[in-house]
């Protein structure tokens, strides 16, 4: 009999093994999220929305009520749920396109309105599911299906600094951080704080997770990790960017 590996309680065993590619970072981000949900004891209050792209493969991932939406529209759907039923803990899970391209309008405005939802964005520098096109976070000179000669920043700009943008817009009460699948423990800490921020009703919380996509990067395991651990942090700073001021006891 196959031994079922240790999984977060909020994970749905029946839909494992999951559908993500071998070496994909989503599995690690969702593990961090699953453990955070377990530790906070909110499994029966969570509504989980996922976007289009590889994030959609998480639609049946958890034993929580989940809805897969349209590309870039996860933030507004989840915002709509939260506004109607503030007691629910609402999570919008998306990729770099869903947050920084087609969904940027919604992300920016949810942040500006300080919506009490938690957005988790997986940044792997490309549009994975559709075959590896350029994303807002694609690195300069990086080859993708729509930048076959390498991304030229003169023509297409530099990688979007999403959490920094969100932190610049939001006011007191928001929580903004960037973690990495290269340090899952730290990432889990950020996600947990982000969810706690929503539980306390402080404001908008946002965590970007640097992640890997060996399938579209065409990298082996060693090179994949090198990219995540060494190359990406040159463009995306890992750490907490904004947190609510500690309340006086």
């Amino acid at each position, binding site marked *: 009999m196959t031994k079922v590996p240790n999984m977060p309680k909020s994970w749905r065993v029946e839909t494992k093994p999951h559908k993500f590619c071998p070496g994909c970072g989503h599995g690690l981000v969702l593990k961090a999220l699953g453990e955070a949900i377990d530790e906070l004891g909110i499994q029966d209050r969570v509504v989980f929305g996922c976007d289009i792209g590889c994030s959609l493969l998480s639609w049946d991932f958890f034993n929580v009520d989940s809805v897969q939406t349209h590309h870039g529209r996860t933030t507004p759907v989840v*915002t709509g749920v939260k*506004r109607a039923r503030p007691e629910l803990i609402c999570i919008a899970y998306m990729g770099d396109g869903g947050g920084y391209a087609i969904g940027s309008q919604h992300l920016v405005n949810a942040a500006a309105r300080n919506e009490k939802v938690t957005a988790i964005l997986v940044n792997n520098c490309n549009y994975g599911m559709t075959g590896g096109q350029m994303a807002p976070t694609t690195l300069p000179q990086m080859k993708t299906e729509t930048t076959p000669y390498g991304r030229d920043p003169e023509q297409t700009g530099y990688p979007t600094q999403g959490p920094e943008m969100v932190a610049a817009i939001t006011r007191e009460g928001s929580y903004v951080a960037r973690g990495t699948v290269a340090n899952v423990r730290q990432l889990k800490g950020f996600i947990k704080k982000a969810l706690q921020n929503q539980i306390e009703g402080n404001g908008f919380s946002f965590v970007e997770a640097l992640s890997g996509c060996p399938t579209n990067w065409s990298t082996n395991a060693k090179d994949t990790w090198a990219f995540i651990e060494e190359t990406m942090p040159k463009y995306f700073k890992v750490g907490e960017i904004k947190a609510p001021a500690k309340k006086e006891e």
Partner: protein
Amino acid sequence: MADKPIQGEKRVFMTGNEVVAWAALAAEADIMYGYPITPQNEVMHYWTRLAPKYGKRFLQTEDEISAGFTTCGGVLAGKRAFTATAGPGNTLMQESMSMAEMMRIPTVLVVQQRGGPSTATVIYSQQEVTMTCYGGNGEGLRIVYSTGSHQELYDYTIKAFNTAWKYRFPTFVLGDGYQAKMRESLYLYDPALKGIKMETTTPYLGLEGMPGVDRDPSHLRNTYNTEEELYEVVSDLVAAYEKIAPEVVEYQTFNTDDAEVIIIAHGVVTRAAQAAVKTLRSQGLKVGHFRPVTLRPFAAQQLRDIVKKAKKLVVVESAQGQLMKLVKDAIYGETVPIEGYLKPGQGITGEEIVEYIKKGM
């Protein structure tokens, strides 16, 4: 804070947009999501003034894409949520409404048609018929009511919530800029007074109990992997829609039994059509009027039966044939000649219909 927004029945004088806000209150709507666009802004102006008094909510979103999707979210959470829009805003809402079609989300959307295409005018038209009935990348699995008076705007906005939640298809109240802004009297009433019971709402997300333990989690999606899978899904949706269509379809007829010429018109134009029929009949001419109230589903069989004895159909609309397409689709195979009195973006009076019909007779 007052308990019920409308107690008993009250005669009032209002604009159409205000009627929508009051009707939503009477229907116990919980939350409105919206974005400003003329000519429906007063729906929000009045909702935001009244909502706090009755513990109702509102969110102004960043655009109509978001207004549509947040409405889906509110409905998924189990609340009576609605939104309103017009013109280019309606165009943007097609994405969210096609998600609602696929996932059977009972959204309520009030459309106050304005000129098209593009920005055009903020004033009036009937040019959003095709889009409201068949917009998005779907099969038009929607329910669309076309109102012609403030009393109907009130009645059908309340009804829209019940239709949506009972049959679980996105439901639309199709008005227009004239109805939105013009003023007339009507009766506001507590639906309970008329024996109308509001359909209970149930959440799709955030249900009671521990998912995976007390119950299965709710896992909702709108994407599929293979052609065969999709065919099954869409077939099921279509079957469900066709099953409920006979219960939902509504239409009116005026002097059609022995009519030689039948005027077909919807929405506010039905007023002009009804007035024209009165005038023409008083002059001894055998003219009748068929008015679809639901544009989707369309009363196809009923119209087919009615036109069998007619010599001519005249479709009258403030658009370039959007109603006419629905008519032709409905009665395909019938050989009765069809003419169009088509005036995109312009109001139509009874007098001009009378003149047009007489010229042709």
